[in-house]
């Protein structure tokens, strides 16, 4: 589906621009510039406001990024449970730094704050799916599933 069709589904929903951005991002992996411009027209708000919304929320990205978005929680409970070592293992395994995407376009590495799965710290999420009690040693196995996809 192209972004115009997605936007059309939300145009009549009061305050629906955030839901529309979620739907566009589910399809494209990020919010393309032309989609944000089209959203501004569709919801009858200034372009600056549409970009203001797109860049306010940390789950939205206005830049292209890897298809599978890996987010590592760095909030206090995960921090003291060893998130730093998990970050190092992810960077090593993928050969990129936090905030970057792999050149093959398969993975993006991002920081996040608490994702509410604190029964099993440290926590990472891949495309929103949580993995708990993650150890550096477990990283290759967790990523294997997404390397094939």
């Amino acid at each position, binding site marked *: 589906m192209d972004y115009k069709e997605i936007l059309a589904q939300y145009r009549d929903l*009061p*305050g*629906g*621009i*955030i*839901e529309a*951005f*979620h739907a566009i991002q589910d399809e494209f992996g990020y919010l393309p510039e032309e989609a944000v411009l089209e959203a501004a027209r569709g*919801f009858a708000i200034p372009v600056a*406001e549409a970009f*203001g*919304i797109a860049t*306010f*929320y*940390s*789950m*939205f990205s206005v830049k292209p990024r890897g298809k599978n978005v890996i987010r590592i929680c*760095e*909030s*206090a*409970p995960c*921090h*003291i*449970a060893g998130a730093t070592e998990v970050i190092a293992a992810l960077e090593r395994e993928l050969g990129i730094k936090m905030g970057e995407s792999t050149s093959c376009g398969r993975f993006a590495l991002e920081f*996040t*704050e*608490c*994702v*509410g*799965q*604190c*029964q*099993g*710290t440290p926590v990472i*999420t891949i495309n*929103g*799916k949580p993995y708990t009690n993650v150890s550096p040693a477990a990283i290759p196995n967790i990523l294997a599933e997404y390397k094939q996809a």
Partner: protein
Amino acid sequence: MKPEELIDEVRQSKLRGRGGAGFNCGQKWYFAYTARADEKFVICNADEGEPGTYKDRIIMENDPHVLIEGMTICATAIGARQGYIYLRGEYPQVVNILNTAIDQAKARGLLDDFDIEVRSGAGAYVCGEETALIESIEGKRGEPRYKPPYPPVEGLWNQPTIVNNVETFAAVPAIVKNGASWYASIGHPDYPGTKIVTLTGDVNNRTFFEVPTNTTIREIIYEFGGGIPAGKKFKAVQVGGTSGAFIPEENLDTPLAFDTMTAIGATLGSGAVLVLDESRNLIDVLTRISGFFQHESCGKCAPCREGTMRLYDLMLKVNNGTGKPQDIKIMQKLGNVMAISCLCGLGQAAPAPILSSLEHFPADFNVKLM
């Protein structure tokens, strides 16, 4: 029951908000009930973003209907026909659970006069603040509004709106069913009922418990939590999430109720309990926490936008061993200014972990200073 009776029952039960502010729930409903408007709204705040907290997720995953029922009772009481559940974006799997439950309730004719829509947040801690949450549902940046007017008078699309936490709504059906005096008799008399606590950090049982509000912090850590692993000693506990104070051993016999926590200079907050053992580097944890607030400040008001950034800078300095005694004084002064001058609870609470640690654990700072 008539709206007035429902509101009275909830007010008499002394149910107070479980989201952190602790306002009398029935009283809040009464404000919205008496407000004159064509349309009123009920919003469930399911944006739990306090690090270490997942109580609302547990409720929604295990008993979504208790939430829907609580919201429907509120709608009946204040005269609302439309409700929203503002669910944090980090819980995509919960969207389906809630929508399925809403469909089930509709199929049984339980939502004929009241509709509920699930809206997803997109990763902004500040949207847990009720007016920021309202802005977000309106499709805007989630920046808090100036108050007053408060939402029960002027909320979503400027109409009277009740915003309650998931845990608050979940308490309502049992109150209506069993009566106000039944509920008021549970736990601490000033903050009756139960509280869900989520345990993280250095504790054997890193899980969640629902406890009466007269349960003490010590009981939470040592009985429910099973104590501290590997025979280590207790160092500090942070209750209420990352915006909570760090509490020393001498205050562990405090009940987990609203005013009792305030009395020791702490907060009940979300009910998150982060335990640190003697081997932990408190300064490093505080540095990470100040980094959290620096990232999550929405930037609307200067004391928070600039203050969270400065506190983070100063904590980084102390943590890497280049801090001076003067930096501690600046943090104290800045923290006190933020606590009284920031626009919303985020900035007001942001210095609390540092200020409480300076009070109770000054030696941890002193050994790091130049």
